[in-house]
């Protein structure tokens, strides 16, 4: 049954800016739609227009049908309950102080009776696995739990359409994939229709049935996910944000196309296997790659000369690129990169190795006397001018480690040296004068002024805020730059820009220490990586060895190619 139909929707903001043009699409009940597009393409505007209470002000043309009825004709009660909406910032969507009260909030608003509320609240808490924190105050929850609570407090209203506007952009990857799995489960088990917009598409695309790509307020493509992805791969702007397996497909099929033509001209025959389907998930990517290799091998056995064939290409891919995000490497050839890297390593003078920008020596830190150690025996050294990245799960102590390096929290034992000098020996504000700077996780704490290049910082998108905050931080001319989750809320294009900027800074001699969940980004930018677990460094090595050696904490591409290409 058709649940949602949008016909010729046009929308212009009250300042005259045209945000959406000629949007038409429809969704069946129980389908999951992924909305993608660059920043400012009108994703949020479209999603908000679908929820009547949140419709932005402006001129709207066109009709939105929900369950066969015009959106305007719905009663207040229906409009509130039929469509659920979850936004980006987990913290600000929570209204009350207790988890159970938050779950009941929507039901209180629509005047449901006590006993009915109790039943529905307890039922939903059970389904979402929230029993153990049902009585807790909302302030004590983790980011992932907060967003799960927001989802649950919307689902308790029993909507038939669930809209998610970048629900996981502020979450770490593990919490993000948990949340998406829950959404997918709701979709599958209850036939709820889901519309989700997100910057990171690695996991959302394989989960969704349909895809809608927006650019400058117009639909670029709409339809079955797989076909749309295939179509979008030819568009540079969209291709960078597609899943790794789709990028791999494009790269290899490009080679294979040429190869096949060569084959057919050589042999005048050949197995007409046709093009395999474009893979979307890591699992599909692995299957595709295996088939590809066996096909190439069978072809290659009949071929005497083998120099520049796909086999070589695959090998070089494995050697040079499996640890690196394909997107940013597209322009450079893989071989060059490796040579460049080796040259860099050889070129580094030996004596410089003793010259460290940041050094942690057996640092122990906890926030409460009776509490557990957040950092324990944390030791690592960061060379001058390198980009050092610390990865690790939630609660591994990553943020605490950078806060300690910035002198904001003090360890109870152990030494922290900044440019060879004990951090405690920096007097007053000396540490922050052209020495150390920190880009915190919450970049909104950076903005003191109301004006950034003529715009209010809060009017910028999440990604633009991130880059603006980086500018402000860099204005203090630091020699050691500490970044806490710098890719939060960035889309693929802005991430690439960030990578370039950080590389340029490192060239100028700025030492950069990054803590992040984002493995793809770390693989792209870092010279060395460390894995933090339970407040200590469990492994540290050059990025390439690091990601090739890890099984879970590694890039999607490395997971696809693991064990298949060596």
């Amino acid at each position, binding site marked *: 049954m058709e649940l949602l139909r949008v016909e010729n929707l046009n929308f212009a903001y009250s300042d005259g800016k045209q945000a959406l043009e000629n949007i038409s699409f429809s969704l069946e009940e129980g389908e999951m739609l992924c909305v993608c597009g660059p920043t400012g393409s009108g994703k949020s505007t479209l999603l908000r227009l679908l*929820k009547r*209470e*949140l419709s932005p002000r402006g001129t709207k043309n066109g009709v939105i049908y929900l369950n066969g009825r015009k959106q305007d004709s719905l009663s*207040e*009660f229906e409009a*509130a309950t039929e469509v*659920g*909406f979850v*936004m980006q*910032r987990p*913290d*600000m*969507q*929570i*209204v*009350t*102080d*207790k988890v*159970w*009260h938050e779950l009941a*909030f*929507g*039901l*209180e*608003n*629509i*005047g*449901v009776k*006590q006993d009915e*509320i*109790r039943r529905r*609240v307890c039922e939903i808490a059970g389904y979402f696995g929230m029993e153990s924190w049902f009585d807790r*105050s*909302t*302030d004590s929850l983790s980011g992932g739990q907060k967003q799960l609570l*927001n989802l649950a*407090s*919307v689902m308790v*209203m029993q909507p038939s359409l669930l809209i998610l506007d970048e629900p996981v952009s502020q979450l770490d990857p593990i919490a993000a994939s948990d949340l998406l799995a829950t959404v997918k489960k709701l979709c599958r088990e209850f036939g709820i229709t889901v519309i989700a917009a997100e910057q990171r598409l690695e996991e959302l695309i394989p989960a969704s049935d349909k895809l809608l790509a927006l650019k400058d307020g117009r639909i670029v493509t709409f339809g079955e996910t797989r076909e749309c992805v295939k179509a979008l791969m030819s568009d540079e702007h969209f291709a960078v944000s597609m899943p790794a397996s789709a990028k791999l497909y494009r790269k290899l099929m490009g080679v294979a196309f040429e190869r096949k033509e060569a084959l057919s001209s050589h042999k005048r025959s050949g197995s007409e296997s046709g093009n395999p389907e474009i893979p979307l998930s890591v699992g599909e990517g692995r299957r595709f790659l295996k088939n590809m290799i066996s096909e190439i091998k069978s072809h290659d056995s009949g071929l005497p000369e083998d120099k520049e064939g796909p086999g070589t290409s695959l090998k070089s891919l494995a050697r040079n690129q499996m640890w690196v995000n394909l997107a940013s490497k597209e322009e450079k050839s893989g071989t060059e990169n490796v040579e460049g890297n080796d040259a860099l390593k050889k070129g580094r003078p030996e004596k410089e190795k003793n010259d460290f920008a940041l050094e942690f020596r057996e640092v122990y830190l906890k926030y409460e006397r009776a509490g557990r150690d957040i950092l324990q025996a944390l030791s690592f050294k960061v060379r001058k001018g390198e980009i050092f990245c610390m990865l690790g799960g939630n609660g591994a102590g990553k943020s605490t480690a950078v*806060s300690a390096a*910035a002198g*904001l929290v003090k360890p109870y034992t152990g030494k922290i040296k900044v440019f060879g000098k004990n951090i405690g020996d920096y007097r*007053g*504000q000396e540490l*922050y*004068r052209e020495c*150390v*700077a*920190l880009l*915190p996780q*919450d970049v*909104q*704490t*950076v*903005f*003191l002024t*109301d004006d950034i290049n003529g715009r209010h910082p*809060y009017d910028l998108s999440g990604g633009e805020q991130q880059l603006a905050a980086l500018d402000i*931080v860099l204005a*203090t001319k630091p020699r050691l730059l500490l970044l806490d989750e710098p890719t939060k809320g960035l889309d693929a294009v802005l991430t690439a820009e960030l990578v370039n900027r950080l590389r340029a800074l490192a060239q100028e001699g700025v030492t950069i220490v990054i803590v992040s969940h984002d493995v793809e980004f770390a693989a792209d930018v870092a010279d060395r990586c460390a894995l933090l677990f339970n407040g200590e460094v469990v492994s540290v090595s050059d990025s390439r060895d690091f990601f090739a050696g890890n099984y879970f904490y590694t890039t999607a591409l490395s997971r696809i190619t693991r064990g298949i290409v060596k």
Partner: protein
Amino acid sequence: MKPLEKYNPAVIFLYFLLLASLAMFAANPVMIAISVLTMNAAAVAYSREGLARSYVFYAIIFVLTSLANPVFSHNGVTVLLVVNDNPITLEAVLYGVMTGFMILSVLLLFRVFSTLMTSDRLLYIFGRAFPKLGLLLAMTLRFVPLFGRQRRKIENTQRTLGLYKDENAIDTIKGKLSVLSAMTTWGLENGIVTADSMSARGYGIKRSRTSFSMFRFERSDLGLLLIVIASCTFIFFGIATDKLKTDFYPRMQLPPFSPYATVCYILYTGLAIFPLVAKVAETLRWKWISGKAYDDKIKR
């Protein structure tokens, strides 16, 4: 008997309210003695930490109230000494000491009350009476810690960015002011998200809002409520008909021990000792259950 905190908050609230007013209105040395002893024991049983420090404060309050009466009131026939032509009488001193104990017992009672009455329980009581105020309180309780945390985060970030760089008072004040202004912007901008989240879930639609709470009213709540109301009525009747009256002036009399008064004392003891008994019973029962479980394990 279930632990005191498991009773319906409204019943607990009423219980403490009546207990405190009895202690205050009776002005009867026996009842105040009972009150001080039982509330002391309850405060020790219920408090988690910081009791010793509170006792220093209580002692100061006790001494001040005890001294205040003989300094300002010169009634009574037994003159102990004369200061600046003003007689200090034994009766006034005794009355002052009794008032001191009364205040002490109410302070202790309030301490026990505050460990039991967490924010959600208070909210339940007031949310019932004033639904709008209830929601406002819940939102306040949500946003006060959130704002506090954000302020600390902004302070930390700005410190690394060179705020407070001159390290003098004026610069510090300037810094604090800009943090405050940043907080305001942050609050207003992010408040929009909260408002969206509220209206997306139907806040403000034309339907009467209900107020939900997790607390139930059980049979045991009704039982406690009836016992409390019955005993308090009995004692209040005694107070109103001067059956518990103890005169201090002009000469102090012994508190009454008529049959009615004696029943009042027994009832009052029963009421006031209830928190302690509930706590001790809970602890003992728990020890017994876990001990039994342990024995069972050994046997098996």
